[in-house]
């Protein structure tokens, strides 16, 4: 697996509209044009990701312990999600700092445009995570394994506080430039980290 994987991701317009609370309302010419313009702008961004596979050494109510790293994935929900998978893949994807600039400039132009850009970028980074997850599933199948669904810090009792160690274990500061703030949030803001369990096939 490469350390910095370019990902062919794009905005899923339906998802973006859903994030905006759209329930079939008529957009009107003006808003439709803004939406189209922003979708096109966000689609020019480049998504990238990184992934690292770890053997699971212990799963319990405390969480999941991994081989060769001091990183522990804490919480009963992640433990349940990983279940009896012998391996997990840790992933991080990001739209990078260009996205930060785009979000800031869109918000300066108008609140509505800022809101739409944020939703479009969210949709694109989700798509990037999905594309990487699928690639990992394909790889896993070739190795006789089955990839489970991705599970991110912040889901259930899997705390955001893990983010700092997660990024460090992945080396994602060096490979993707992802920083973690004191409040455990990632910058670039349109970044996703997740755990994908890799199950042995019976």
């Amino acid at each position, binding site marked *: *697996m*490469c*350390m*910095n994987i370019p990902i062919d991701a794009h905005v899923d317009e339906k998802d973006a509209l859903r994030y*905006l*609370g*759209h*329930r079939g*309302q008529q*957009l*009107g*010419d*003006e*808003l439709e*044009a*803004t*939406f189209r*313009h922003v979708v096109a702008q966000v689609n020019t961004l*480049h998504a990238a990701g990184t992934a*690292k*596979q*770890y053997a699971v050494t212990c799963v319990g109510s405390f969480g999941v312990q991994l081989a*060769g790293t*001091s990183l522990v994935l804490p919480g009963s929900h992640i433990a349940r999600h990983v279940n009896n998978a012998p391996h997990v893949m840790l992933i991080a994807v990001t739209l*990078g*700092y*260009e996205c*930060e*600039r785009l979000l*800031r*400039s869109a*918000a*300066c*132009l*108008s*609140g*509505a*445009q*800022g*809101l*739409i850009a*944020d939703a479009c970028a969210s949709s694109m980074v989700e798509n990037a995570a999905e594309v990487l997850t699928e690639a990992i599933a394909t790889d896993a199948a070739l190795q006789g394994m089955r990839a489970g669904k991705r599970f991110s810090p912040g889901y259930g009792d899997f*705390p*955001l*506080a893990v983010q700092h160690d997660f990024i460090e274990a992945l*080396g994602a500061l060096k490979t*993707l*430039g992802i*920083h973690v*703030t*004191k*409040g*455990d*949030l990632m*910058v670039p*803001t349109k970044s996703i980290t997740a755990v994908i369990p890799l199950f042995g096939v019976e």
Partner: protein
Amino acid sequence: MLAKKGDTMACPSRVVRYKDTYLQHALHGDAFLLFDGGMGTMLQQAGLSGIANPPDLLNLTHPSAIEEIQRAYVEAGCDVITTNTFNANPIKLEGHADVAEVYMAAAQIARSAGARYVAGDIGPTGALLQPLGNLSFDEAYEQFALQARAAEQAGCDLIVIETMADLREAKAAALAALENTSLPVCVSMSFEADGRTFLGTTPEIAAATLSALGVQAVGVNCSVGPDEMLDTVKQIRQRARCAVLAQPNAGLPRMVDGQTVYDMDVAEFAAAVVRMIEAGATLVGGCCGTNPHYIKALRAAIDKLGTPAAALPFAQDFIVCSAQEMVVIREGESHIKVIGERINPTGKKRLKAALKTGDIDYVVAEAIAQTEAGADILDVNVGLPELDEPALLTQCVDTLQSCVTTPLQIDSADPAAIECAVRGYAGRPLINSVNGKQQNLQEILPIVARYGCSVLGLTLDEEGIPPTAEGRLAIARRIVAAAEAYGIPRCDVVIDCLTMAVATNQAEAQEILRAIKLVKEQLGVRTVLGVSNISFGLPQRSLMNAAFMAAAFGAGLDMPIMDPLNRRAMDTVQAFRVICGQDISARDYIEAYATAEDPYVAGASQHASSTSGAHAGSALSQAAISGSSAVSSEAASDTNACPIPIPVGTEMASSQIAAVAGYVLSGRAAPMPEAVATLLETCDPMTIINDVFIPLLDLVGQRYDSGAFFLPQLMSSAEAVKAGFDVIHERQESLGEMGGEGTTKLGPVLLATVQGDIHDIGKNIVRMLMENYGIDVIDLGRDVAPEAIVETVKANNIRLVGLSALMTTTVRAMEQTIALLKQEVPTVSVLVGGAVLTPEYAQTIGADFYAKDAAESAQLVTRFFRA
């Protein structure tokens, strides 16, 4: 013309202390200097990785192990040992050790290992600089200064700042080392596979910006593999005004069994580095994955080469750059670059108002619109007598550089404001301006030199503006000479021959054109000109401006300072770019004009003129700076069916009111200023606010509540109302009625997203709706410390604070903020909102009010202040 090697500017008074003449020669590019290789790989091999975090603490706990590694490098033949201090800054040491203590130990170890030269290593802080992160430029500078002083006190012979991804951070580190030590300074950045750093900086930009600060070497380390790095070295060489450093990894990093592996063959590595030497690098070494074997092979290769073959010329190109974009006019090249002039409050009421109220978004919108319309550089002038110009200019420049990549021209008459703004600017700005007055030269040129900027020189002096071309040339000559005396090469000076109105000084028009020609021919510098003064006092000003600009281009003008949203001006630029050979095969021209109508042909629409969108700026950005020429005069389609009752006494204006309602409900901000201006001819301002805007906002709120509108529609409608409000406020301000009865604003209310939370979209929506309801909002932004909120509340006698938090993790910070507020200002009330909050939880954390969304917030605050 090529400059002499080592001909760098900046800190002209700084005396560099070299340990010996070999080091001096090497840092002038006259001899090779071999650095050591990776430390992390060696620590891993020695079984020391993971023992100490950060590994810099090993200098204190395992000095002999570090010494052993460094001795192996010395024995391999390297000249320079880099101290094991990459992370030795206060942020990463986290109080486990003192910065000075770590450097002292590390330098001692390197000397004990037998190092010929010891380089004090400085890596990134590990924190993101503002505005992306929390660390201010000054805080970063202080941390680096602490490290640089510690390195010098520990006896290091030079300082190496390395693996930087943020040009602004690299600049803070370079300035800290230059201003706090007398050691030679090398700065190197890390570039990704796309040829840029994570924050978008190219090798050319890094080299141009950092070498102009006066460092002794710039370069690249880490990054991708050595083969991929060759092009990076070439780009750096092209723009570096000093020696070039290259420290590649031992191949392209790969992941094998969860471990990062670098596995380039030693001989291949040495061959790749020799290619970098041939491309101009003279300071070389290794980074991740390299070990003493690699360095030994490199020693042998360098010894075979003997001395560096090439001198260190740098092209006398004119360069201005942001961290992401570079504007270059090569020596002898006839290229037109447009300097956008719109961010200047002179004669612009809306911009003045925005600056006064701290509405920097408006400034950004101006920047975006000009960039989309074709501006290559943006002038930034925020000089208003009643405002703190150094603070405001810095704020605008900092915000602009996080939103647009177009390089900036810092325009001020106040040297303090210029210095504040350019110091933290990531890139090489153009300073506007210096002139021929002695005092002015003495005040401005040291700033230009110190921060490695380019400078615009005005041909005026104590006697005023000379009427003749020769007089202007003489002043230009003095400015260029004075700049050179400060170490500023003439390629960094551009001259403005100053336009006078042709209506009052008709003879001078020809003199200005002749002056441009003389200045270019005799001084070899590029020229700029603010063209629009020429037409002062005449009708059809843009026609006159365009004709004069074309003539000036013919005389050799490189950079017009103009309004890029003026289509006729941009048409002239685009046409001339074909004539001067810049627009190769007229490709851009044909694309823009092939299907455009000629505005002078009968029947063509007045403004169709040729733009076809290519250089006009998008309607979206232009709408954001409503009041510009982009404003449409189109009427709403549903003028007959007004959705709100026509106010009594305004029946005559019913169709205009219906039009305004149509715009608001369809969320169209662009036509609002004109529509409201028309309405003001027959309606009282307070009637418009209370009987048109407020009912419309209520209607929009109802549609949102019922699900007929979704959030972007609510926002668009609110923005349309805001555009209308702005017209009314502007009108009243010009009539001196602000603060009069009926227009008194409610509030102020303070808004902030709590500490640790960087999500501010929700808070921004709340602010917009509150402003629409006439509430005065003080917005402290996102990630705001409780102390800052308390301080603002006390300073402004604020009665109501609105706090927002999106994350469960940051609700705790909200609770702490409320507790501190209640303790320090018991009378203040707190309103909270955010995705994770509920009315019950709001009560638990001590809030007085909870609002489920922006509309409810605005209504609640209105009731609060009217109670």
